[in-house]
């Protein structure tokens, strides 16, 4: 098992390296001078020169690349051209917001997926099944930001039930930050009003992202459960007198879970893309918003850092998915 995990980690490194390299050279080759962007077009040339030197932009590109790789290995991801703080510090400060959003969205998507998918499979061809399939087709064609805006319109503007932006109301941040996940921190601090406020703010963004992603899960759960429901061990379990609930959840769904998990891993990239749009739609202070903001400032190290960070996030999740798969399926485990 240990070697298995180790191999998976080693396999993830080239992917991160390739993304890093592509983005590094794309940023360097393409037009757009970051120093000019920072200082404005009227900055005196000697100031620009000094700034370029300070940021290492006057070195040959290969040296710059080497420096950047070094900074990734050191773990500081370089220094932001805009704030002067190490990029990793900024990313770590933004990351919990993104993590909280993606975890909640994923949970919502998985719940909807398992519920509709399993029942759709079980009632194959009947009304509920058709409803689930129509749902997954149409929701999938929604642009995530449009769906978010619609929810803002309905639940924020028309009904006044939920806040439409931000992660919390003013002065409603947990007193002590342990994890950066406000839900967990407010529970640890026993600050119930903060917890309620946090959840209030979480509902719309995570429902937006979760619902859009859920359409894939409905489809995948449905087709995999149909597959396992038609397998011999399900018939055999029924022949033993197993209760229908057990047959569906213990045999059919659990066996369908391994492929579903694999898909979850693959979909995670899609979820992250959606997360960036969702964060911008709801002014959610995560890495997505960070990336989009820093683009306006041409903050190269920050943009690069965010991209590499996303690549690592994707890689880590796919490793976790493989481990979970091994845990679920004894044939992989041994």
């Amino acid at each position: 098992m240990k070697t298995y995990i180790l191999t998976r980690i080693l396999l993830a490194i080239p992917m991160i390296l390739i993304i890093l390299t592509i983005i590094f050279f794309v940023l360097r080759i393409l037009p757009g001078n970051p120093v000019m962007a920072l200082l404005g077009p009227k900055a005196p040339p000697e100031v620009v020169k000094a700034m370029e030197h300070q940021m290492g932009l006057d070195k040959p590109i290969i040296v710059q690349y080497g420096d950047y790789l070094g900074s990734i290995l050191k773990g500081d991801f370089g220094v932001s051209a805009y704030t002067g703080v190490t990029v990793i510090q900024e990313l770590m400060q933004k990351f919990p917001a993104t993590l909280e959003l993606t975890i909640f969205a994923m949970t919502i998507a998985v719940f909807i997926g398992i519920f509709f998918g399993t029942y759709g499979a079980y009632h194959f061809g009947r009304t509920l099944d058709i409803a689930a399939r129509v749902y997954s087709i149409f929701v999938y064609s929604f642009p995530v930001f449009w769906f978010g805006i619609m929810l803002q319109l309905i639940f924020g503007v028309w009904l006044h039930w939920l806040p439409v932006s931000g992660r919390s109301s003013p002065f409603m941040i947990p007193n002590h930050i342990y994890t950066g996940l406000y839900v967990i921190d407010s529970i640890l601090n026993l600050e119930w009003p903060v917890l309620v406020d946090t959840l209030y703010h979480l509902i719309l963004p995570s429902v937006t992202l979760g619902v859009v992603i859920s359409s894939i899960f409905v489809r995948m759960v449905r087709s995999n459960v149909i597959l396992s429901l038609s397998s011999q061990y399900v018939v055999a379990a029924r022949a033993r007198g197993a209760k229908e609930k057990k047959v569906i959840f213990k045999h059919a769904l659990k066996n369908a879970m391994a492929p579903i998990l694999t898909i979850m891993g693959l979909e995670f990239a899609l979820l992250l893309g959606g997360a960036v749009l969702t964060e911008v739609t709801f002014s959610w202070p995560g890495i997505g918003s960070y990336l989009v903001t820093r683009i306006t400032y041409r903050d190269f190290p920050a943009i690069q850092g965010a991209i590499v960070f996303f690549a690592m996030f994707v890689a880590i999740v796919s490793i976790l998915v493989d481990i979970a798969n091994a845990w679920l399926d004894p044939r992989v485990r041994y």
Partner: protein
Amino acid sequence: MANTTNTNYGNQMLSSRIGRGFRQLMGDSSGVMTFIGLILLSLFVLMAIFAPYISPYSPVEPSGAPLLSPQWGHIMGTTNLGYDVFSRFIWGSRMALLIAVIATSIAAFIGIPTGLLVGYAGGVTDRIVTMIMDSVYTFPGLILAIAIAAMLGPGVLNISLSIAVVYIPTYYRVIRSQVSTIKSELYVEGARSIGAKNMTIIGKYILPNVLPSTIVVLSMNIADAVMTEAGLSFLGLGIPPPVPDWGYDLAKGQQFLLQNDWWMVVFPGIAIILLVLGFSMFAEGMDEYLNPNIGEKR
């Protein structure tokens, strides 16, 4: 364990998912789906071509008081600058289709030959290129496009290029996997044994075989490109205003959401959804027509 997600066209494609869902839902009457898709598509294409003739007002000049709600004369209302939303709805199809088609063409133009040559060559080149393509493929496409679009700056070609980068691996993967299968088929071996040149083999034997799936991937890919373009322009990385663009209009509309000016956000979104649905349904129909055996697997 069975894996039902392995279709030939990469399971990350928006349009293949929507389309396949439709086809399964429709069963035998999937011809209806293709037909609806075709109608939706033609509608948008006609809208784009004849925009100057059918749009009631100019999309870039005030045509009434700002922020009028939908009413006679402005059936979709007006924007904060008094632009007619309906006219922008019509003109927006131009940008959406234009960028999607250019982006898809660039991606195909790079991805297909690379897939052909690398798949045919095999060996170390194959392994290295495939690893690079796979890395890009597994990375969140939109985020990559955001980064590249941000660096390139606004403009039709720039946006198209940044979208294209995301989809090159899709073409590459489809073509490469087919080429490596066809390459070892008997008739290709035969052609090689009688001394046919590599280029002849690729052009005469391999290309015609991969062409049908290429066409399907092309038509499927456009829906994805439409969606990505909308995302980029929503983030302000698209065509600079006041060029009519649905994604940008949505972002603008969101600023006036709190005043309950819903018409600025509802209609551009519907346009995107309809166009994406149209392409997906049409592409799936094409797939069924060109590759009839694939549908039987499910």
